[in-house]
C-alpha cells in the first residue's frame, strides 16, 4: 500500500462504522435486548422535526402587565383589610393602571400613619408625598421599575411551570416547553392527537373565584356601586348549540380563590349521570369556606372561572369539611380538563397564542416518503450521469457521495440534531453538491492529462490545484448556512443543520475519501491510462 493511505483508509472505515452504529436505532425496527442493555450503544433514532412526525408548535405570549396589575390588586385589597382592622378610615383605595395603588383619606393624620405602615410593609414600592385631591388627602403607592420587572419575570417563569404541570397531567410524550425572550413561551407537542383540546387547556388562565351574588341589585341596572360587577353565565344547549347568557351582579371582592385548593377530581352525579368537578380546599380554604357559608345561608354563591360564572347555587347550610363541587354543562372531557387546570393551578397572567403550527401525522409521513423518494431519484440521476461522463472516476466520485450521505446521517443521529423536511431537501441538494468538488478535480485532471502528464502526477496536481477553489466554494456556503442556523427556527434550522454538516463532511470525503481511492489504484506510477 502506498505511504499515507493507511491512516486515511482507517479514518474512513472508522467513520463509516460509527455512522452505521449511530444509525442502527433508526434503521432497525426493534433493537435486540442485548443492544439496549449495553450502556454505551446509541439508542435514539434520528430526531424528527414536528413537520415530519406531526404535532403542534405553539408560541405563547404572557400578558405580563396583567401580572403586575394582579399584584397591585392584591395590595389594594390587603390594604383595605389592614386599614379596616386598624380602624383607619379611608375614602377609597384602588389600583390605577399597571403602576400604582391610589389612596384617598379624610384626614391628614390617618394618611401619615398609613405612610409609616406602608414603609414597613411594601419595600418594593415607592410612596408619593401626600397631596390634595378635591379636599381629601391623597397618597400613591407606586411599584418600582425593578419590582415590576421582577414581577413580570416571575410571572413568565410561573406560567411556564403551570403549563408544564398541565401538559404533564394531560399526558403528552416528550413535550418541549421553554422560555424564549422576555415574555414568550415555546411549546412543542409531538404526535398530539387532539391539538385543539390541548391548546384550550394550555391557554386557559383558570382563575377560580367564589363571589357572593348581590341579589339586591337587578342585573339590568345602569349604575352599579363601586364594589359590584356584572358577570355572565354562558350555557350552550347541547341539541341546538344555541348560546344563552344569564347576567349576575356579583360582589367584586372574591371571598375564596383557586389557590386555596389542594385537589380537583371529576365525579359523576349518580342522580342525573352528569359529570362535575369535586374540589378540596386546604385548611385555610376550608376554614374560610366554613365561615363564609355560615354567614351567608340563603344567599347565592357564584363560582367564577376566568370571569365566567359557572354556577351560582344557593347556600342551603353551613358547609364544613372543606370540599365543594363545581357543576355546569360538562361533558366528561371538559370536566376532566377543568380538573387538570384546577389541580395545576392558575396562570399568574393571561396568555395569548401568537403562533400555532399543527401538522397532522399523515402529512408528516407523506413528507418523509416523498423526501426519501426525491432523494433516491436524485441519487440515481447523479450516479448515472457521473458514471457516463467520468466512467470509473465518476464511480469513485459516486462512492464519495454515498459516503457523504452516510456520514451526514450518522452525524445527525450522533449529535441528536433534528431532521426536518427542508433538512431532507438539504441532503438531496448535497447529493448534487458533493460530486461538484470531484467534478472540479476531474476536469483539472483531464487538463493535466492533455498536457501529457502521466495519470499519477495528473491526479496529484489536479487535487492540489483544485484544493483552494473547493475550499472557497465550501466556505461561502458554510457562511450562509451558519447565518440560517442562527436566525432560522424549526424547519429552516433543520435545513441549516443538514447543510452545514453536509458541507463540512463533503470537504472530507471529496479531498480525502476519493483521493485515497485513486491513490490505491494508481500508486505504482506505471498506470498508463486513467478512466476519466
Amino acid at each position, binding site marked *: 500500500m502506498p505511504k499515507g493511505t493507511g491512516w486515511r483508509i482507517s479514518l474512513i472505515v472508522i467513520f463509516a462504522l460509527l455512522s452505521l452504529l449511530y444509525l442502527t436505532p433508526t434503521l432497525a425496527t426493534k433493537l435486540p435486548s442485548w443492544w439496549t442493555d449495553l450502556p454505551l450503544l446509541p439508542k435514539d433514532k434520528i430526531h424528527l422535526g414536528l413537520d415530519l412526525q406531526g404535532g403542534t408548535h405553539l408560541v405563547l405570549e404572557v400578558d405580563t402587565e396583567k401580572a403586575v396589575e394582579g399584584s397591585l390588586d392584591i395590595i389594594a385589597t390587603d390594604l383595605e383589610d389592614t386599614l379596616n382592622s386598624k380602624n383607619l378610615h379611608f375614602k377609597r383605595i384602588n389600583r390605577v393602571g399597571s403602576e400604582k395603588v391610589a389612596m384617598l383619606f379624610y384626614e391628614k393624620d390617618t394618611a401619615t400613619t398609613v405612610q409609616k405602615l406602608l414603609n414597613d410593609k411594601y419595600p418594593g414600592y415607592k410612596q408619593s408625598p401626600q397631596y390634595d385631591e378635591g379636599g381629601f388627602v391623597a397618597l400613591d403607592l407606586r411599584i418600582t421599575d425593578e419590582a415590576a420587572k421582577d414581577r413580570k419575570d416571575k410571572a413568565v417563569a410561573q406560567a411556564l411551570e403551570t403549563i408544564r404541570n398541565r401538559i404533564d397531567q394531560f399526558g403528552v410524550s416528550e413535550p418541549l416547553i421553554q422560555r424564549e425572550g422576555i415574555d414568550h413561551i415555546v411549546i412543542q407537542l409531538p404526535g398530539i392527537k387532539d391539538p385543539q383540546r390541548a391548546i384550550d387547556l394550555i391557554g386557559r388562565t383558570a382563575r377560580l373565584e367564589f363571589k357572593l351574588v348581590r341579589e339586591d341589585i337587578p342585573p339590568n341596572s345602569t349604575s352599579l356601586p363601586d364594589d359590584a360587577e356584572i358577570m355572565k353565565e354562558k350555557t350552550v344547549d347541547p341539541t341546538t348549540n344555541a348560546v344563552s347568557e344569564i347576567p349576575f351582579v356579583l360582589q367584586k371582592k372574591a371571598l375564596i380563590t383557586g389557590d386555596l385548593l389542594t385537589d380537583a377530581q371529576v365525579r359523576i352525579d349518580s342522580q342525573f349521570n352528569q359529570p362535575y368537578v369535586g374540589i378540596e380546599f386546604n385548611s385555610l380554604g376550608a376554614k374560610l369556606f366554613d365561615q363564609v357559608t355560615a354567614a351567608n345561608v340563603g344567599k347565592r354563591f357564584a363560582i367564577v372561572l376566568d370571569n365566567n360564572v359557572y354556577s351560582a347555587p344557593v347556600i342551603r347550610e353551613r358547609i364544613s369539611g372543606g370540599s365543594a363541587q363545581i357543576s355546569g354543562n360538562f361533558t366528561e372531557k371538559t370536566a376532566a380538563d377543568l380538573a387538570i387546570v384546577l389541580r395545576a393551578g392558575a396562570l399568574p397572567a393571561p396568555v395569548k397564542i401568537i403562533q400555532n*403550527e399543527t*401538522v*397532522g401525522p399523515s402529512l408528516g409521513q407523506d413528507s418523509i416518503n416523498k423526501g426519501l423518494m426525491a432523494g433516491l431519484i436524485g441519487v440515481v440521476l447523479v450516479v448515472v450521469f457521473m458514471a457516463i*461522463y467520468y466512467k470509473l472516476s465518476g464511480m469513485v466520485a459516486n462512492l464519495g457521495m454515498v459516503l457523504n450521505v452516510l456520514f451526514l446521517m450518522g452525524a445527525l443521529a450522533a449529535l441528536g440534531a433534528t431532521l426536518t423536511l427542508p433538512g431532507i431537501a438539504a441532503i438531496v441538494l*448535497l447529493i448534487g453538491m458533493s460530486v461538484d468538488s470531484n467534478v472540479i478535480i476531474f476536469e483539472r485532471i483531464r487538463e493535466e492529462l492533455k498536457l501529457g502528464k502521466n495519470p499519477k502526477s495528473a491526479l496529484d496536481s489536479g487535487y492540489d490545484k483544485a484544493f483552494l477553489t473547493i475550499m472557497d466554494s465550501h466556505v*461561502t456556503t458554510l*457562511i*450562509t448556512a451558519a447565518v440560517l442556523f442562527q436566525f432560522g427556527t424549526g*424547519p429552516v434550522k433543520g435545513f441549516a443543520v443538514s447543510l452545514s454538516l453536509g458541507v463540512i463532511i463533503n470537504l472530507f470525503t471529496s479531498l480525502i475519501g476519493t483521493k485515497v481511492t485513486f491513490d490505491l489504484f494508481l500508486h505504482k506510477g506505471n498506470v498508463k491510462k486513467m478512466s476519466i
Partner: protein
Amino acid sequence: MELLGKTNIDFIGKRNIAFVISAIISIIGIIGIIQIARGAANMGIDFSGGTAMQLKFSKPIDTASARTTLHKNGIPKVELQEVKEGNKLLIKIDRNMSIALGKSAEAVQNAFKKEHPDNTFTVESSTEIGPSIGDKLRKDTLIAVVISLLGIILYIAWRFDFKFGIGATLATLHDCLAMFAVFYVLNLEINLLFITAVLTIAGYSLTDTVVVFDRIRENMHKNLKESLSNVFNRSINEVLSRTIVTSLTVFLAAISLFLFGGEVIHDFSRALLVGVIVGTYSSVFVASPIVVLLENRSLESKAQKA
C-alpha cells in the same frame, strides 16, 4: 465523455447584451422586493401573519362551494387552492380578520362540518401566526440576509482582490434579485422557505464564480502581455465545461426535489432550480465582465496619469 469540446466563445464581447438582460432582471427583482416590503406581494403567512390550513376531504370539493361555505360562516377574505390528488384544499386567511387568533382554524373546521356534514375531512396541517411573530420574523430575516451577504463579501474580498470582490458580490446579488424577480412575476408565495433558498443559492452560486476567477487569476499570472478580454475569455472557455457540469449535478438533485418532493417543498425547490440556472449564467456573463470593466477603467486612468 465530454459535453463540450474546446470552445472559443466571446463572452466578454457580449457583455453589453448580458448587462441589459441582467439589468432588466435585477430591476424586476428590486421592484419585487419593494412590493414585498410594502406588503403588496404574495406573502406567506409566516411573514404577514394569518392562518393557513390544509384539509384532506373524503370526497372531492370544489373551491367555489368551499368559498361560499366559508363566506356564509363569517370568513370573507380567504384564498383557496385545490389539490386534485387526494381531495386536498389549501386555505389561506388574511390576518386582518375579525376572528381572534387561535380561533380561525377552529372556525374553518366548524364551517365545513356544518355545511358539508357528509364530506368528512382531516386537518393535515394548520398554521396560525400572529402579527407580532410575522414582524419579528421579517426583521430577523432582513438581518440574516444582510449578515450573509456581508460575510460573503468579506470572504471574497479577503481571498481575491477588490475588483474581483465587487464582481463576485454583484453576481451574487444579481442571482438573489433574479430569484425574487421570478417569484414576483409568477406571483408565487414569498415565505421563509423561499428566503432560505435565496440564501442557499447566495452561498452556492459563488462556487461557479470562484472556479472562473481562480482560472482567470492563474492565467493573468502566466501571461502578462495578452489583453485582458482575451485572458478572461480564454479562462471562461477553459472552465466552461466544469461550470456547466457542476451546475448540472445540483440541478439534477434539485429537479428530483421539485418533481417528487411533495407540495410542501415544491416552491422551495422551484426557487433552488431558478437559483442554480441564474447562478451559472451570472458566473459567466455578470461576474467576469464586471471585473474586466473595472480593470479596464483603472488601466485607462493609469494611462492618463502617465
